[in-house]
Protein backbone atom coordinates (compact mmCIF):
# COMPACT_ATOMS: atom_id res chain seq x y z
CA UNK A 1 0.00 0.00 0.00
CA UNK A 2 2.03 2.90 -1.25
CA UNK A 3 0.10 6.01 -1.99
CA UNK A 4 1.64 8.60 -4.27
CA UNK A 5 0.36 12.14 -4.41
CA UNK A 6 0.46 15.20 -6.63
CA UNK A 7 2.76 18.12 -5.73
CA UNK A 8 4.53 16.34 -2.91
CA UNK A 9 6.73 18.22 -0.44
CA UNK A 10 9.11 15.25 -0.34
CA UNK A 11 9.61 12.93 -3.26
CA UNK A 12 11.89 9.92 -3.02
CA UNK A 13 12.60 8.07 -6.23
CA UNK A 14 14.05 4.53 -6.27
CA UNK A 15 16.45 5.32 -3.47
CA UNK A 16 18.98 2.64 -2.67
CA UNK A 17 21.54 3.14 0.10
CA UNK A 18 24.33 1.04 1.52
CA UNK A 19 26.82 1.55 4.31
CA UNK A 20 30.10 0.39 2.81
CA UNK A 21 29.15 -2.95 1.33
CA UNK A 22 26.05 -3.40 3.37
CA UNK A 23 22.80 -2.47 1.61
CA UNK A 24 20.37 -1.03 4.14
CA UNK A 25 17.65 0.52 2.01
CA UNK A 26 16.23 -1.06 -1.09
CA UNK A 27 14.42 0.91 -3.76
CA UNK A 28 12.39 3.30 -1.70
CA UNK A 29 9.87 5.16 -3.76
CA UNK A 30 7.49 7.53 -2.02
CA UNK A 31 5.93 10.96 -1.90
CA UNK A 32 4.63 12.94 1.05
CA UNK A 33 1.95 15.64 1.27
CA UNK A 34 2.78 19.10 2.63
CA UNK A 35 1.46 20.16 6.01
CA UNK A 36 1.29 16.70 7.47
CA UNK A 37 2.76 15.06 10.52
CA UNK A 38 4.52 11.98 9.16
CA UNK A 39 5.77 9.02 11.18
CA UNK A 40 8.44 6.60 9.97
CA UNK A 41 7.92 3.18 11.54
CA UNK A 42 9.94 0.01 11.39
CA UNK A 43 12.01 -2.45 13.43
CA UNK A 44 15.63 -1.86 14.43
CA UNK A 45 17.93 -1.85 11.40
CA UNK A 46 15.02 -1.22 9.05
CA UNK A 47 16.72 1.86 7.62
CA UNK A 48 14.52 4.55 9.21
CA UNK A 49 17.37 6.88 10.11
CA UNK A 50 19.16 6.02 6.90
CA UNK A 51 16.18 7.16 4.88
CA UNK A 52 16.19 10.66 6.34
CA UNK A 53 19.99 10.82 6.30
CA UNK A 54 19.95 9.98 2.61
CA UNK A 55 17.32 12.63 1.94
CA UNK A 56 19.45 15.15 3.86
CA UNK A 57 22.52 14.18 1.86
CA UNK A 58 24.37 12.80 4.89
CA UNK A 59 24.81 9.38 3.35
CA UNK A 60 25.41 8.81 -0.29
CA UNK A 61 22.73 7.03 -2.28
CA UNK A 62 23.82 4.18 -4.56
CA UNK A 63 21.03 5.01 -6.92
CA UNK A 64 17.86 7.05 -7.06
CA UNK A 65 17.33 10.57 -5.83
CA UNK A 66 15.11 12.64 -3.62
CA UNK A 67 13.56 16.04 -4.14
CA UNK A 68 12.30 18.53 -1.60
CA UNK A 69 9.79 21.16 -2.68
CA UNK A 70 10.35 19.74 -6.16
CA UNK A 71 13.97 20.95 -6.03
CA UNK A 72 17.45 19.72 -5.23
CA UNK A 73 18.41 19.77 -1.57
CA UNK A 74 21.09 22.42 -2.13
CA UNK A 75 18.56 24.90 -3.43
CA UNK A 76 16.25 24.57 -0.45
CA UNK A 77 18.56 24.04 2.52
CA UNK A 78 17.14 27.18 4.11
CA UNK A 79 13.72 25.61 4.22
CA UNK A 80 14.76 22.25 5.65
CA UNK A 81 15.73 21.33 9.18
CA UNK A 82 17.24 18.14 10.52
CA UNK A 83 17.30 16.88 14.10
CA UNK A 84 19.89 14.13 14.55
CA UNK A 85 19.66 11.37 17.14
CA UNK A 86 20.58 12.57 20.57
CA UNK A 87 23.39 10.00 20.91
CA UNK A 88 25.07 11.22 17.75
CA UNK A 89 26.82 14.07 19.57
CA UNK A 90 29.02 14.36 22.64
CA UNK A 91 27.06 16.18 25.31
CA UNK A 92 30.22 16.91 27.28
CA UNK A 93 30.87 19.66 24.76
CA UNK A 94 31.43 22.93 26.62
CA UNK A 95 28.29 24.85 25.69
CA UNK A 96 25.02 25.98 27.23
CA UNK A 97 21.54 25.09 26.02
CA UNK A 98 21.25 28.57 24.53
CA UNK A 99 24.55 28.12 22.65
CA UNK A 100 23.19 25.01 21.01
CA UNK A 101 19.89 26.62 20.02
CA UNK A 102 21.76 29.59 18.55
CA UNK A 103 23.40 27.12 16.15
CA UNK A 104 20.02 26.93 14.47
CA UNK A 105 20.41 30.52 13.33
CA UNK A 106 23.84 30.01 11.75
CA UNK A 107 22.77 29.21 8.21
CA UNK A 108 20.89 32.49 7.91
CA UNK A 109 24.01 34.31 9.02
CA UNK A 110 26.44 33.03 6.46
CA UNK A 111 30.22 32.90 6.75
CA UNK A 112 32.13 35.17 9.15
CA UNK A 113 29.05 36.87 10.63
CA UNK A 114 28.42 36.49 14.33
CA UNK A 115 25.03 35.88 15.89
CA UNK A 116 23.74 39.04 17.60
CA UNK A 117 20.87 40.18 19.72
CA UNK A 118 18.19 39.28 17.22
CA UNK A 119 19.44 35.71 17.00
CA UNK A 120 19.60 35.44 20.76
CA UNK A 121 16.00 36.57 21.13
CA UNK A 122 14.89 34.07 18.53
CA UNK A 123 16.79 31.30 20.31
CA UNK A 124 15.18 32.23 23.64
CA UNK A 125 11.73 32.15 22.00
CA UNK A 126 12.41 28.69 20.65
CA UNK A 127 13.60 27.48 24.04
CA UNK A 128 10.38 28.86 25.47
CA UNK A 129 8.32 26.88 22.95
CA UNK A 130 9.81 23.64 24.24
CA UNK A 131 9.52 24.77 27.86
CA UNK A 132 13.23 25.06 28.38
CA UNK A 133 13.60 28.80 28.91
CA UNK A 134 14.69 28.32 32.51
CA UNK A 135 17.53 26.08 31.41
CA UNK A 136 18.99 28.44 28.82
CA UNK A 137 22.25 28.97 30.69
CA UNK A 138 22.64 25.39 31.84
CA UNK A 139 25.60 23.40 30.55
CA UNK A 140 24.29 20.72 28.20
CA UNK A 141 25.87 17.76 30.01
CA UNK A 142 23.86 18.74 33.07
CA UNK A 143 20.53 18.34 31.28
CA UNK A 144 18.50 15.15 31.37
CA UNK A 145 18.07 13.11 28.21
CA UNK A 146 14.61 14.52 27.60
CA UNK A 147 15.84 18.06 28.12
CA UNK A 148 18.70 17.52 25.71
CA UNK A 149 16.19 16.28 23.16
CA UNK A 150 14.11 19.41 23.64
CA UNK A 151 17.18 21.58 23.15
CA UNK A 152 17.72 19.86 19.81
CA UNK A 153 14.12 20.52 18.81
CA UNK A 154 14.45 24.16 19.87
CA UNK A 155 17.51 24.40 17.63
CA UNK A 156 15.43 23.06 14.76
CA UNK A 157 12.71 25.63 15.49
CA UNK A 158 15.34 28.37 15.38
CA UNK A 159 16.05 27.36 11.80
CA UNK A 160 12.55 28.61 10.89
CA UNK A 161 12.21 25.95 8.25
CA UNK A 162 9.21 24.61 6.32
CA UNK A 163 10.17 20.97 6.51
CA UNK A 164 11.52 19.12 9.55
CA UNK A 165 13.19 15.74 9.72
CA UNK A 166 13.54 14.38 13.25
CA UNK A 167 15.47 11.25 14.08
CA UNK A 168 13.93 9.56 17.15
CA UNK A 169 12.96 12.77 18.96
CA UNK A 170 11.10 10.79 21.62
CA UNK A 171 14.02 8.57 22.62
CA UNK A 172 14.63 8.96 26.34
CA UNK A 173 11.77 11.45 26.70
CA UNK A 174 9.11 11.07 29.37
CA UNK A 175 5.43 10.69 28.50
CA UNK A 176 4.32 14.25 29.33
CA UNK A 177 7.16 15.78 27.27
CA UNK A 178 6.31 13.47 24.40
CA UNK A 179 2.70 14.67 24.49
CA UNK A 180 3.82 18.30 24.65
CA UNK A 181 6.14 17.81 21.70
CA UNK A 182 3.42 16.17 19.63
CA UNK A 183 1.20 19.12 20.47
CA UNK A 184 3.96 21.43 19.26
CA UNK A 185 4.37 19.46 16.05
CA UNK A 186 0.61 19.67 15.47
CA UNK A 187 0.74 23.43 15.79
CA UNK A 188 3.56 23.51 13.29
CA UNK A 189 1.70 21.36 10.77
CA UNK A 190 -1.39 23.52 11.27
CA UNK A 191 0.74 26.41 10.01
CA UNK A 192 1.46 24.41 6.88
CA UNK A 193 4.83 23.04 7.91
CA UNK A 194 5.69 19.41 7.42
CA UNK A 195 7.18 17.36 10.24
CA UNK A 196 8.66 13.92 9.60
CA UNK A 197 9.48 11.86 12.67
CA UNK A 198 11.30 8.57 13.09
CA UNK A 199 9.26 6.68 15.67
CA UNK A 200 9.35 3.23 17.18
CA UNK A 201 6.10 2.80 19.03
CA UNK A 202 3.30 1.35 16.91
CA UNK A 203 0.57 2.04 19.45
CA UNK A 204 1.10 5.76 19.79
CA UNK A 205 1.86 6.10 16.08
CA UNK A 206 -1.80 5.63 15.24
CA UNK A 207 -2.74 8.55 17.45
CA UNK A 208 0.12 10.88 16.60
CA UNK A 209 0.55 10.88 12.86
CA UNK A 210 -1.50 11.82 9.79
CA UNK A 211 0.67 9.82 7.47
CA UNK A 212 2.80 6.75 8.06
CA UNK A 213 5.84 5.34 6.32
CA UNK A 214 6.57 1.72 7.18
CA UNK A 215 10.02 0.45 6.46
CA UNK A 216 11.71 -2.89 6.70
CA UNK A 217 14.79 -2.40 4.54
CA UNK A 218 12.34 -1.84 1.73
CA UNK A 219 9.25 0.32 1.75
CA UNK A 220 6.27 -1.65 3.06
CA UNK A 221 3.75 1.14 3.13
CA UNK A 222 3.33 4.87 2.79
CA UNK A 223 -0.07 6.48 3.14
CA UNK A 224 -2.65 8.09 5.43
CA UNK A 225 -2.47 6.52 8.88
CA UNK A 226 -6.01 5.18 8.84
CA UNK A 227 -5.37 3.30 5.61
CA UNK A 228 -1.96 1.81 6.30
CA UNK A 229 -2.13 0.88 9.97
CA UNK A 230 -3.44 -2.59 9.27
CA UNK A 231 -2.54 -5.92 10.75
CA UNK A 232 -1.25 -7.20 7.43
CA UNK A 233 1.13 -4.31 6.82
CA UNK A 234 2.36 -4.35 10.41
CA UNK A 235 3.19 -8.03 10.07
CA UNK A 236 5.08 -7.26 6.86
CA UNK A 237 6.97 -4.49 8.62
CA UNK A 238 7.82 -6.24 11.85
CA UNK A 239 7.61 -9.89 10.83
CA UNK A 240 11.25 -10.36 9.84
CA UNK A 241 13.30 -9.31 6.87
CA UNK A 242 12.81 -10.58 3.36
CA UNK A 243 15.23 -13.48 3.13
CA UNK A 244 16.07 -12.73 -0.49
CA UNK A 245 17.22 -9.24 0.40
CA UNK A 246 19.32 -10.58 3.26
CA UNK A 247 20.93 -13.16 0.96
CA UNK A 248 21.64 -10.58 -1.72
CA UNK A 249 23.18 -8.38 0.97
CA UNK A 250 25.49 -11.25 1.92
CA UNK A 251 26.63 -11.70 -1.68
CA UNK A 252 27.41 -8.00 -1.96
CA UNK A 253 29.31 -8.05 1.32
CA UNK A 254 31.50 -10.89 0.10
CA UNK A 255 32.32 -9.35 -3.26
CA UNK A 256 35.11 -7.08 -1.97
CA UNK A 257 33.58 -3.95 -3.45
CA UNK A 258 30.10 -2.54 -3.76
CA UNK A 259 28.67 -3.47 -7.15
CA UNK A 260 25.77 -1.08 -6.62
CA UNK A 261 28.00 1.95 -6.72
CA UNK A 262 28.76 3.22 -10.18
Amino acid at each position, binding site marked *: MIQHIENPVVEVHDLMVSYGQNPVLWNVDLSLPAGSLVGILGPNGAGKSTLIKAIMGLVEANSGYSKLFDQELNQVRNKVSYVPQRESVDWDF*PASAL*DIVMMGTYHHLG*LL*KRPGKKEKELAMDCLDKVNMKNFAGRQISELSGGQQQRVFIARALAQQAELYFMDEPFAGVDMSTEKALIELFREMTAEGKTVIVVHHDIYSAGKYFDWLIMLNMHLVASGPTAEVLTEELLTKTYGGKLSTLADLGEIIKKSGFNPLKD
Partner: protein
Amino acid sequence: MSFDQNAFIIILTGSMIAISCGLLGAFLMLRKMAMTGDAISHAVLPGIVIAFLISGSRHGLTMVIGAGLVGLIATACIEYLTQKVKLQSDASIGITFTSLFAIGIILITFLANQIDLDQDCVLYGEIAYVPIDLWITKAGTIMGPRTTYLAVINLVLAIAFVSLFYKELKLSTFDPEFAATIGLSTAGVNYGLMGMVSYTTVSSFEAVGAILVVALLVVPPATAFLWTKNLKKLLTVTAILGVLISFLGYYLAYLLNSSIAGAMASVAGVFFFVSVTLNRHQIPRIKSKMRRLREEMA
Protein backbone atom coordinates in the same frame (compact mmCIF):
# COMPACT_ATOMS: atom_id res chain seq x y z
CA MET B 1 67.18 33.28 39.31
CA SER B 2 66.62 36.50 37.52
CA PHE B 3 64.24 38.19 35.22
CA ASP B 4 66.32 39.78 32.53
CA GLN B 5 65.68 40.66 28.94
CA ASN B 6 66.57 37.16 27.70
CA ALA B 7 64.20 35.57 30.15
CA PHE B 8 61.49 37.93 28.99
CA ILE B 9 62.03 37.09 25.33
CA ILE B 10 62.03 33.37 25.99
CA ILE B 11 58.93 33.47 28.17
CA LEU B 12 57.15 35.72 25.69
CA THR B 13 57.97 33.45 22.75
CA GLY B 14 57.03 30.38 24.75
CA SER B 15 53.73 31.93 25.79
CA MET B 16 52.80 32.87 22.25
CA ILE B 17 53.59 29.39 20.99
CA ALA B 18 51.66 27.82 23.86
CA ILE B 19 48.62 30.02 23.18
CA SER B 20 48.61 29.30 19.43
CA CYS B 21 48.92 25.58 20.10
CA GLY B 22 46.30 25.62 22.84
CA LEU B 23 43.67 27.48 20.81
CA LEU B 24 43.91 25.00 17.94
CA GLY B 25 44.46 22.04 20.24
CA ALA B 26 41.19 22.77 22.05
CA PHE B 27 39.30 21.98 18.86
CA LEU B 28 41.43 18.91 18.20
CA MET B 29 40.55 17.65 21.65
CA LEU B 30 36.83 18.35 21.27
CA ARG B 31 36.85 16.58 17.90
CA LYS B 32 38.52 13.56 19.51
CA MET B 33 41.47 14.06 17.24
CA ALA B 34 44.16 14.62 19.87
CA MET B 35 46.15 11.70 18.53
CA THR B 36 45.86 13.07 15.00
CA GLY B 37 47.55 16.19 16.38
CA ASP B 38 50.25 13.98 17.82
CA ALA B 39 50.62 12.28 14.44
CA ILE B 40 50.87 15.57 12.54
CA SER B 41 53.51 16.92 14.88
CA HIS B 42 55.67 13.83 14.27
CA ALA B 43 54.90 13.66 10.59
CA VAL B 44 55.99 17.16 9.61
CA LEU B 45 59.61 16.21 10.26
CA PRO B 46 60.49 15.00 6.74
CA GLY B 47 58.83 18.12 5.36
CA ILE B 48 60.97 20.29 7.59
CA VAL B 49 64.15 18.52 6.53
CA ILE B 50 63.36 18.67 2.82
CA ALA B 51 62.27 22.30 2.97
CA PHE B 52 65.43 23.06 4.90
CA LEU B 53 67.50 21.36 2.25
CA ILE B 54 65.82 23.30 -0.55
CA SER B 55 65.77 26.73 1.02
CA GLY B 56 68.92 26.39 3.08
CA SER B 57 67.37 28.06 6.07
CA ARG B 58 65.08 27.21 8.90
CA HIS B 59 63.01 30.27 8.38
CA GLY B 60 60.93 31.63 5.64
CA LEU B 61 58.05 30.65 3.52
CA THR B 62 59.50 27.48 1.96
CA MET B 63 59.75 25.92 5.36
CA VAL B 64 56.24 26.79 6.40
CA ILE B 65 54.66 25.76 3.12
CA GLY B 66 56.77 22.64 2.61
CA ALA B 67 56.39 21.25 6.05
CA GLY B 68 52.81 22.42 6.40
CA LEU B 69 51.99 20.49 3.25
CA VAL B 70 53.46 17.32 4.72
CA GLY B 71 51.20 17.79 7.72
CA LEU B 72 48.18 17.96 5.44
CA ILE B 73 49.43 14.95 3.49
CA ALA B 74 49.69 13.05 6.76
CA THR B 75 46.08 13.97 7.58
CA ALA B 76 44.94 12.86 4.13
CA CYS B 77 46.97 9.67 4.44
CA ILE B 78 45.34 8.79 7.76
CA GLU B 79 41.94 9.41 6.24
CA TYR B 80 42.78 7.36 3.14
CA LEU B 81 44.01 4.42 5.21
CA THR B 82 40.91 4.50 7.38
CA GLN B 83 38.30 5.00 4.69
CA LYS B 84 39.64 3.46 1.50
CA VAL B 85 42.09 0.85 2.76
CA LYS B 86 39.70 0.14 5.67
CA LEU B 87 42.34 -0.04 8.33
CA GLN B 88 41.18 0.69 11.88
CA SER B 89 41.76 4.33 12.74
CA ASP B 90 44.27 3.94 15.60
CA ALA B 91 46.50 1.81 13.39
CA SER B 92 46.18 4.31 10.52
CA ILE B 93 47.41 7.07 12.79
CA GLY B 94 50.22 4.93 14.21
CA ILE B 95 51.53 3.75 10.86
CA THR B 96 51.37 7.16 9.20
CA PHE B 97 53.29 9.09 11.80
CA THR B 98 55.89 6.44 12.63
CA SER B 99 56.79 5.97 8.98
CA LEU B 100 57.00 9.69 8.22
CA PHE B 101 58.95 10.37 11.39
CA ALA B 102 61.36 7.53 10.60
CA ILE B 103 61.94 8.99 7.14
CA GLY B 104 62.58 12.37 8.72
CA ILE B 105 65.20 10.98 11.11
CA ILE B 106 66.93 9.09 8.31
CA LEU B 107 67.05 12.23 6.19
CA ILE B 108 68.54 14.20 9.08
CA THR B 109 71.21 11.57 9.61
CA PHE B 110 72.03 11.41 5.89
CA LEU B 111 72.23 15.16 5.53
CA ALA B 112 73.90 15.79 8.85
CA ASN B 113 76.75 17.60 7.16
CA GLN B 114 74.61 19.72 4.93
CA ILE B 115 71.99 21.06 7.24
CA ASP B 116 72.15 22.54 10.65
CA LEU B 117 69.49 20.38 12.25
CA ASP B 118 70.20 17.71 14.77
CA GLN B 119 68.25 15.07 16.58
CA ASP B 120 68.24 17.04 19.80
CA CYS B 121 66.52 19.94 18.09
CA VAL B 122 63.85 17.53 16.84
CA LEU B 123 63.30 16.28 20.34
CA TYR B 124 63.09 19.40 22.39
CA GLY B 125 63.88 22.44 20.30
CA GLU B 126 66.16 25.29 21.17
CA ILE B 127 64.02 27.91 22.77
CA ALA B 128 66.94 28.82 25.02
CA TYR B 129 68.79 30.15 21.98
CA VAL B 130 65.94 32.33 20.82
CA PRO B 131 67.45 35.59 22.14
CA ILE B 132 70.75 34.92 20.32
CA ASP B 133 69.22 34.01 16.97
CA LEU B 134 68.65 37.49 15.65
CA TRP B 135 66.98 38.70 12.53
CA ILE B 136 69.41 41.00 10.80
CA THR B 137 68.26 42.88 7.71
CA LYS B 138 70.44 43.32 4.66
CA ALA B 139 71.22 46.85 5.75
CA GLY B 140 72.60 45.44 8.95
CA THR B 141 69.92 46.62 11.33
CA ILE B 142 69.19 44.17 14.11
CA MET B 143 65.47 43.65 14.26
CA GLY B 144 65.38 41.36 17.27
CA PRO B 145 64.97 37.61 17.81
CA ARG B 146 63.79 35.78 14.73
CA THR B 147 61.78 33.01 16.36
CA THR B 148 59.81 35.56 18.33
CA TYR B 149 58.68 37.15 15.08
CA LEU B 150 57.60 33.73 13.81
CA ALA B 151 55.67 33.18 17.03
CA VAL B 152 53.93 36.55 16.67
CA ILE B 153 52.83 35.78 13.13
CA ASN B 154 51.70 32.35 14.23
CA LEU B 155 49.72 33.73 17.13
CA VAL B 156 48.03 36.38 14.99
CA LEU B 157 47.05 33.78 12.41
CA ALA B 158 45.83 31.31 15.00
CA ILE B 159 43.69 33.92 16.75
CA ALA B 160 42.38 35.16 13.41
CA PHE B 161 41.50 31.65 12.31
CA VAL B 162 39.71 30.75 15.52
CA SER B 163 37.81 34.03 15.83
CA LEU B 164 36.83 34.35 12.16
CA PHE B 165 35.62 30.78 11.91
CA TYR B 166 34.54 30.46 15.54
CA LYS B 167 30.94 29.73 14.63
CA GLU B 168 31.87 27.18 11.98
CA LEU B 169 34.45 25.45 14.16
CA LYS B 170 32.05 25.27 17.06
CA LEU B 171 29.17 23.88 15.05
CA SER B 172 31.12 21.35 13.03
CA THR B 173 32.91 20.15 16.14
CA PHE B 174 29.78 19.70 18.22
CA ASP B 175 27.46 18.30 15.57
CA PRO B 176 29.07 17.59 12.18
CA GLU B 177 25.90 16.04 10.77
CA PHE B 178 23.80 19.06 11.54
CA ALA B 179 26.57 21.30 10.19
CA ALA B 180 26.49 19.37 6.92
CA THR B 181 22.72 19.71 6.61
CA ILE B 182 22.90 23.49 6.72
CA GLY B 183 25.42 23.36 3.91
CA LEU B 184 28.61 23.90 5.88
CA SER B 185 31.61 22.17 4.35
CA THR B 186 32.73 20.04 7.26
CA ALA B 187 35.64 18.66 5.25
CA GLY B 188 36.73 22.22 4.51
CA VAL B 189 36.65 23.17 8.19
CA ASN B 190 38.53 19.99 9.04
CA TYR B 191 41.30 20.56 6.54
CA GLY B 192 41.50 24.21 7.54
CA LEU B 193 42.04 23.19 11.14
CA MET B 194 44.56 20.50 10.24
CA GLY B 195 46.39 22.96 8.01
CA MET B 196 46.62 25.43 10.88
CA VAL B 197 47.81 22.69 13.23
CA SER B 198 50.53 21.64 10.77
CA TYR B 199 51.61 25.23 10.26
CA THR B 200 51.74 25.84 14.00
CA THR B 201 53.72 22.67 14.57
CA VAL B 202 56.24 23.71 11.94
CA SER B 203 56.45 27.25 13.17
CA SER B 204 57.01 26.09 16.77
CA PHE B 205 59.34 23.28 15.77
CA GLU B 206 62.51 25.22 16.26
CA ALA B 207 61.53 26.43 19.69
CA VAL B 208 60.02 23.33 21.27
CA GLY B 209 60.79 20.42 18.94
CA ALA B 210 58.44 18.12 17.11
CA ILE B 211 57.34 15.95 19.98
CA LEU B 212 56.79 18.39 22.80
CA VAL B 213 54.45 20.44 20.64
CA VAL B 214 51.89 17.78 21.48
CA ALA B 215 52.13 18.70 25.14
CA LEU B 216 51.20 22.28 24.24
CA LEU B 217 48.48 21.23 21.79
CA VAL B 218 46.65 18.86 24.07
CA VAL B 219 47.50 19.29 27.73
CA PRO B 220 46.37 22.92 28.35
CA PRO B 221 42.96 22.42 26.65
CA ALA B 222 42.50 19.09 28.44
CA THR B 223 43.23 20.81 31.75
CA ALA B 224 40.92 23.72 30.95
CA PHE B 225 38.18 21.31 29.86
CA LEU B 226 38.00 19.96 33.40
CA TRP B 227 37.24 23.40 34.79
CA THR B 228 35.03 25.13 32.25
CA LYS B 229 31.53 24.81 30.90
CA ASN B 230 31.59 26.89 27.79
CA LEU B 231 33.82 27.12 24.79
CA LYS B 232 34.90 30.73 25.20
CA LYS B 233 35.98 30.12 28.78
CA LEU B 234 37.72 26.96 27.71
CA LEU B 235 39.76 28.94 25.19
CA THR B 236 40.52 31.71 27.68
CA VAL B 237 41.65 29.33 30.40
CA THR B 238 43.75 27.47 27.83
CA ALA B 239 45.48 30.71 26.87
CA ILE B 240 46.14 31.66 30.50
CA LEU B 241 47.52 28.19 31.14
CA GLY B 242 49.79 28.66 28.14
CA VAL B 243 51.35 31.76 29.67
CA LEU B 244 51.68 30.14 33.11
CA ILE B 245 53.28 27.04 31.63
CA SER B 246 55.77 29.12 29.73
CA PHE B 247 56.64 31.27 32.73
CA LEU B 248 56.95 28.47 35.26
CA GLY B 249 58.58 26.17 32.71
CA TYR B 250 61.33 28.69 32.12
CA TYR B 251 62.19 28.94 35.78
CA LEU B 252 61.93 25.21 36.36
CA ALA B 253 64.40 24.69 33.55
CA TYR B 254 66.60 27.40 35.01
CA LEU B 255 66.48 25.68 38.38
CA LEU B 256 67.20 22.20 37.06
CA ASN B 257 69.52 23.34 34.30
CA SER B 258 67.51 21.42 31.73
CA SER B 259 65.56 21.82 28.49
CA ILE B 260 62.98 24.59 28.67
CA ALA B 261 60.51 22.84 26.37
CA GLY B 262 60.71 19.71 28.50
CA ALA B 263 60.17 21.77 31.63
CA MET B 264 57.14 23.45 30.02
CA ALA B 265 55.63 20.03 29.32
CA SER B 266 56.36 18.96 32.88
CA VAL B 267 54.68 22.06 34.33
CA ALA B 268 51.71 21.42 32.04
CA GLY B 269 51.68 17.92 33.48
CA VAL B 270 51.53 19.24 37.02
CA PHE B 271 48.53 21.44 36.15
CA PHE B 272 46.90 18.52 34.38
CA PHE B 273 47.28 15.98 37.14
CA VAL B 274 46.28 18.41 39.88
CA SER B 275 43.13 19.26 37.90
CA VAL B 276 42.36 15.60 37.30
CA THR B 277 42.75 14.82 40.99
CA LEU B 278 40.48 17.68 42.00
CA ASN B 279 37.85 16.90 39.36
CA ARG B 280 37.97 13.15 39.41
CA HIS B 281 34.36 12.73 40.48
CA GLN B 282 32.79 15.18 38.11
CA ILE B 283 31.19 12.86 35.62
CA PRO B 284 27.61 11.80 36.37
CA ARG B 285 28.46 8.12 36.03
CA ILE B 286 30.98 8.39 38.81
CA LYS B 287 28.81 10.79 40.78
CA SER B 288 25.89 8.39 40.89
CA LYS B 289 28.18 5.49 41.65
CA MET B 290 29.69 7.38 44.57
CA ARG B 291 26.24 8.22 45.82
CA ARG B 292 25.17 4.61 45.59
CA LEU B 293 28.28 3.50 47.43
CA ARG B 294 27.62 5.98 50.18
CA GLU B 295 24.03 4.84 50.47
CA GLU B 296 25.10 1.23 50.65
CA MET B 297 27.55 2.07 53.37
CA ALA B 298 24.90 3.86 55.37
